[in-house]
């Protein structure tokens, strides 16, 4: 039997080596989306493709199991040292969307398969109808780009240039993609080499036993936390504004959580039928939302790895938004993920009221294509990811003006934007009263206003305009999001949460993210919290009277 000291040493080593893989990849990754957003993950898996430690980009963590299972099913008999497999297939391999390209490589000690090294990273373009391969109104996965089932891109250490040619021929940005593929293969192979070194030093048996102990430890840790929950079932539902195609129809997501015999079942059978537009989810993403929510609810320090699957079950109905069938499009999965997390957390709160939390405000994007109107020597594509606010929770006001849940990207500084693009950010302000009222208030949204100094095409992608973040346990909803164009003219108007607009120099617009939902009856809010909110300008005196009766 393996001793706990060796398990802990190997556990730290796996964490250190994935950190090193991340940096190695980051260091050699070429395209800006990887460099700036770090939209990638690197991992170590056991011989069955089970994840050993969670990557910082958490929602990739549940994908590898599906990807590896498919590699083993299709190529298991012919796996050889030096093989590297590639796939971007949401249906065949569970990847989030076609822009995310995954690589896994088997690791051998002698002839024995001891595990896999893997990585997933966003690619600038893999074809499809829209540049960037994420079309907000795609209706089939075939509109979203080239599909690669798991195939070898290196065989027994030798590159397979035909596959790479095929990929690059389908990309609008072949140079960037080629650079990124090179970096990703290198990082994956570095993981293989490091795992081989561990096997050499500690012995293959010890490494495999340590992996088993690390998986079992995580399962035990999660099981211990689940054992504290009361048995029973609870359900919740929530809505997205639209799927991007059928603009008038709201999309319903629903879950029933059942705790029984020390296990948790997430049942999504009652979710809407799969959508025409690209907000569908594959089970790999739904699982990420479930584990993220479960760990957040039970104790944020719990370690995730695929051992956690031993105590959690999932149930889906076919052809639903949470278990889409090909060829349903999936490229806007992140917006759906962020809604699903709200829904799952609401259901979980019935089992652990002290971790109850209201809906968060999700995450949106603003893109301005300046065409030929950009500043000389600068890029003409302005792209910002804008956060929102957390909901209030048991004993806790929601955080304001922040990235939420599975999203954690930086805001682009105003001074950088104005220095690089023909734009002026005329204000960036808190929106008073935007946090849902409650005993514990939702976080506040921000308003960001722009003046265009040249003509440009503005693309806004967001949610929460029709369906604002809901409160829980008597808390009120947060303020809905807004996108307002032609500000200060007779044509001023509020648009739907997502849209594309041709704008002229001198046009003004502003966006407001959604505020977090409130928790609990506003009448119970402590007087000193209300006084502080008013003093800080978070709540106006009028709203305090209206919402809190003070």
């Amino acid at each position: 039997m393996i001793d706990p000291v060796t398990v802990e040493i190997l556990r730290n080593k796996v964490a250190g080596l994935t950190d090193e893989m991340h940096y190695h990849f980051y260091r050699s990754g070429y395209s800006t989306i990887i460099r700036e957003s770090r939209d990638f993950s690197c991992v170590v898996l056991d011989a069955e493709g089970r994840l050993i430690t969670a990557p910082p980009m958490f929602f990739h963590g549940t994908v590898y199991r599906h990807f590896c299972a498919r590699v083993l099913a299709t190529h298991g008999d012919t796996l050889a040292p030096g093989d590297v497999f590639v796939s971007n297939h949401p249906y065949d391999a569970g990847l989030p969307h076609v822009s995310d390209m995954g690589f896994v490589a088997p690791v051998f000690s002698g002839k024995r398969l001891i595990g896999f090294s893997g990585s997933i990273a966003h690619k600038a373009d893999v074809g499809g109808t829209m540049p960037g391969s994420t079309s907000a109104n795609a209706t089939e996965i075939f509109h979203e780009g080239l599909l690669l089932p798991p195939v070898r891109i290196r065989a027994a250490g030798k590159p397979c240039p035909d596959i790479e040619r095929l990929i690059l021929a389908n990309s609008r940005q072949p140079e960037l993609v080629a650079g990124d593929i090179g970096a990703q293969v290198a990082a994956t192979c570095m993981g293989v080499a490091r795992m081989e070194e561990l096997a050499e030093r500690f012995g293959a048996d010890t490494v495999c036993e340590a992996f088993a102990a690390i998986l079992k430890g995580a399962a035990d840790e999660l099981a211990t936390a689940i054992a504290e929950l009361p048995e029973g079932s609870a359900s919740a539902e929530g809505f997205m504004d639209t799927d991007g195609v059928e603009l008038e129809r709201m999309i319903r997501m629903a879950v029933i959580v059942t705790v029984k015999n020390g296990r948790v079942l997430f049942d999504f059978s009652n979710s809407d039928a799969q959508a025409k537009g690209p907000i569908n989810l594959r089970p790999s993403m739904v699982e990420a939302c479930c584990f993220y929510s479960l760990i957040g609810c039970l104790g944020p320090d719990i370690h995730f790895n695929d051992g956690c699957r031993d105590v959690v079950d999932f149930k889906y109905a076919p052809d639903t938004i949470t278990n889409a069938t090909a060829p349903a499009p999936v490229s806007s999965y992140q917006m759906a993920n962020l809604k699903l997390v709200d829904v799952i957390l609401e259901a979980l709160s019935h089992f652990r009221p002290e971790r109850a939390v209201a809906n968060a405000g999700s995450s949106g994007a603003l893109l301005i294509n300046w065409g030929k109107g950009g500043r000389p020597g600068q890029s003409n594509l302005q792209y910002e990811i804008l956060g929102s606010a957390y909901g209030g929770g048991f004993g806790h006001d929601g955080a304001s003006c922040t990235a939420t849940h599975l999203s954690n990207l930086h805001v682009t500084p105003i001074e950088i934007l104005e220095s690089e693009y023909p734009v002026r950010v005329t204000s960036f302000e808190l929106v008073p009263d935007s946090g849902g009222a409650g005993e514990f208030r939702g976080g506040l949204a921000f308003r960001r206003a722009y003046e265009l100094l040249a003509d440009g095409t503005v693309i806004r992608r967001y949610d929460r305009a029709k369906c604002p973040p809901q409160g829980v346990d008597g808390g009120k909803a947060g303020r809905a999001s807004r996108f307002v164009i032609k500000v200060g003219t007779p044509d001023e108007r509020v648009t739907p949460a997502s849209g594309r607009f041709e704008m002229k120099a001198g046009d003004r617009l502003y966006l407001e993210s959604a505020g977090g939902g409130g928790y609990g009856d506003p009448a119970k809010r402590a007087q000193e919290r209300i006084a502080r909110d008013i003093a800080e300008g978070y709540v106006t005196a009028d709203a305090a009277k209206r919402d809190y009766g003070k």
Partner: protein
Amino acid sequence: MAETGKSARFRLGVDVGGTHTDLVLLDSATGETRVEKVSSTPGNPSEGVLEGVRRFLAKGVAPEDISFFAHGTTITTNALLEMRGARVGLMITQGYNAVQETQNQARDGNPFDYFYDRPTPIAPQSRTREIPERTDYAGNVLVPLDEDAVREGAKALDAAGVDAVAVCYMFSYMNPAHEARTRAIINEVAPRLHVSLSSDVLPRIREWPRLSTTLVNAYLAPVLTRYIRDLSQGLDGLGVKTPQRFLMQSNGGVMPFAAAVTGEKTVHTLLSGPAAGAQAAAWVARASAGAGLVTLDMGGTSADIAFIEDGVPLEVTEGAVARRQVDVPALDMTTISAGGGSIARVAPGGFLTVGPESAGAQPGPACYGRGGEQPTVTDADIACGYLNPDYFLGGAQKLDVAAAERALDTQIAKPLGLSVREAATGIRRIVDERMADEVRVFAAKRGLEPRAFTLLPFGGAGAVHAAAVAEELGIARILVPPRPGAFSALGLLCSDVVHDYIRSELSPLSRLAPEHAEELFTELESRARADLASEGLADADARLEREMDLRYAGQGYELRVSLEGIGAMNAAALAAARARFDEHHARIHGHAAAEKPVEVVSYRVRARVAVPKYKARELPAHSGAAPAPKGKRQVWFDATRATEVPVFERDAIRRGGKVTGPAIVEQMDATTIIPADWDGEVDAFGNLILTYRGPAR
């Protein structure tokens, strides 16, 4: 040279740590050093400092013979950690109050914790005044400063009882006029208030990091000013009248007290403490030419790791201290929760973990006998026989072996079905491997290969664990300095006066007029000269080094590129800068893109004034005869068997003296473990050099 005093016999370095205040007194006539160690006095740290100085005076040092005083302090760090800074008001451009709420939008800390809170604001919205004014990216005024609003704001903040005001307007780094005028108005309306301007503290692009750094400066300036005034008076009172008084900064250089009391550079002192140790290591690296060093400063709660390459510590220009973003130059270090006080526990899932919690000094490890019941790394060290329970701090503190073993047994061994020795050796292995893993990843991220480096352990526990860490990393050479426990204080006697100046102005390098760049550098240089003059440092001695922050167009961060040797700005100089950037980028990030356009983001000037350095005294030649051990003890290098190991007194090993492992070398402030497969030898300067002679790895 900065030193001007007539009698220049003694130079004093004082490093205040969490537990102890270390003092090193250098006799520049003989090169001899003397060390004092006193308890730190966290309530008012200057008391401990002065107590230490008094001890030297009591031993016959004449106060007027102390011609130089350099100080490393955690006063600002602790004030920030414990939120004991000033009451701060803020003035910002009207319409931008979400900048301070949003910060950089990303969350720090555990990503699963949806009950996330940002750190308590240094200046809440209720003490924030929005001032009508606006400058554009080119420095043109779009909205003139509303002076009445400033006046009214200053009065209101004064009435609200603030001690300090931070001022941060949009694009003030391009045109500081509005901030400068704001300061003048505040000085007029409320002269008692300290004012920190973002265009002084960090005239750098990106509104949130500039605002955050300015807020931290305003928050801590009154704290540091008060402390330095108290300390100065205390020194005067003891008759130590030298005007040569310096304070260590995060960038590894010192600043004169005259600069510290203005409050303008306070934020540069946040990492004063750890910087001193790295400076001492850099000095050692320069003295033993060619050696790259990796330092391992292992104390009570954590281990600090830094790399010294070509005699210079690596630097960073962005960082967070106590969750506050502070973007001024600092030595590049990593800290992990691996110290003597790190607690071992059986975590959920049955894992044996060490740290991050620390038993600190109170109650301390179980073996301190102060009520600590959690086993720590020090308890494991004592149960393995690594530490001598009767010779801790030279015998000043007795360690309770039975208490250590009891804690290990009940908390670790029994729950996991291990023996006490297995638990103790296991904890040691886990902590040693974690430090090695941290060094390996830190090195990989900077494109370094640790095997090529010498390990330099210091702090109380560094040399206890160094050999195991080195073996794990494939490092074959360890340098244990003569006084590992007072090494940081020595660093204070090895540092130049350094001031850093920065000014952002984003433009494509291809469109930059060289004469404009020259003008920007010249402005920074005049500022540097003016500061040095006001500090009484003759500008004739100053060395001014130019640097540019460059990036490929579209990147979100930039690299600092030295322009040393490039000379005045002209087309050829800009081309040379670009070539250096490509080279630097390739080294740090693995590739360069010579065809891509490059942007200049910021201009930097570093002013350096040489300070006389400590010179190590060469020990008299000696026969190198094998030293005699002072005793023996049982050591468990592994859990299965004890080895009887000779124990040597450090001072008894003379120059050239050799010790063959396994052996233990003890001294008042540290213990060095020399395992089998290692040899020790004392070099000409009293360093104990350990060399690996085991099988190749």
